[in-house]
């Protein structure tokens, strides 16, 4: 319906850029991270690596 993105929140270390409905984007995380949608700043998530 609307564009979103996936952006690392603390240092803006990585970001997908805007993605339209149905788009996909991949990253191989090397550390835990908080991420959010920089377009809709209330949409947040967390990556926790299993050790």
């Amino acid at each position, binding site marked *: *319906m*609307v*564009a979103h993105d996936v952006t690392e929140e603390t240092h803006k270390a990585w970001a997908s850029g805007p993605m339209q409905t149905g788009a996909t984007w991949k990253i191989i995380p090397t550390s835990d991270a908080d991420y959010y949608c920089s*377009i*809709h*700043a*209330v*949409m947040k998530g967390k990556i926790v690596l299993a050790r």
Partner: protein
Amino acid sequence: MKTTRTLAAFAIAVSLQLFSLNVSAQKSPKLTDPEIASVAVAANQIDITAGEQAKTKSKDKEVQNFANTMINDHRSVIKQASDLVKKLNVTPKDNAVSRKLMADANRTRKSLASKSGKAFDKAYVNNEVAYHKAVISTVENVLIPQTQNAELKQLLQNVMPALRTHLEHAQMVQKSLK
């Protein structure tokens, strides 16, 4: 009991004044699909215009960011609604609800135009919070239940999560301005 009733009457009076869209919800006007399409386009266009006004008047980064999101998201919804009504061969039809929306929005725009700086930011964001609450209620309680065409109904249902996110986003910016 009397106090409760008085409070309830007061609450209704306040909501009638603040959220004219809810007035429509309470009366539940009967709308046809072409009229619903017109209300949907008007409601989106109003928020695009408000966002453009905020972009020219605000210097606050969070307000600017929010305004950009409103412009882009509501443009995207209008585009999808226009594509759908074209496909369905429906011509959006002006009606009492869409006219009331536009009239209220014109009044709001004039009132915001007279403000600047932080007073503008607060007034714009407060209005965005109230507007999204009113729109969510109208789409949910008036437009979706009355829509006949399944694809148009689905489109309105698909818009709901974005509207809720916009409301939360507006409330977040509202807090940051205090």
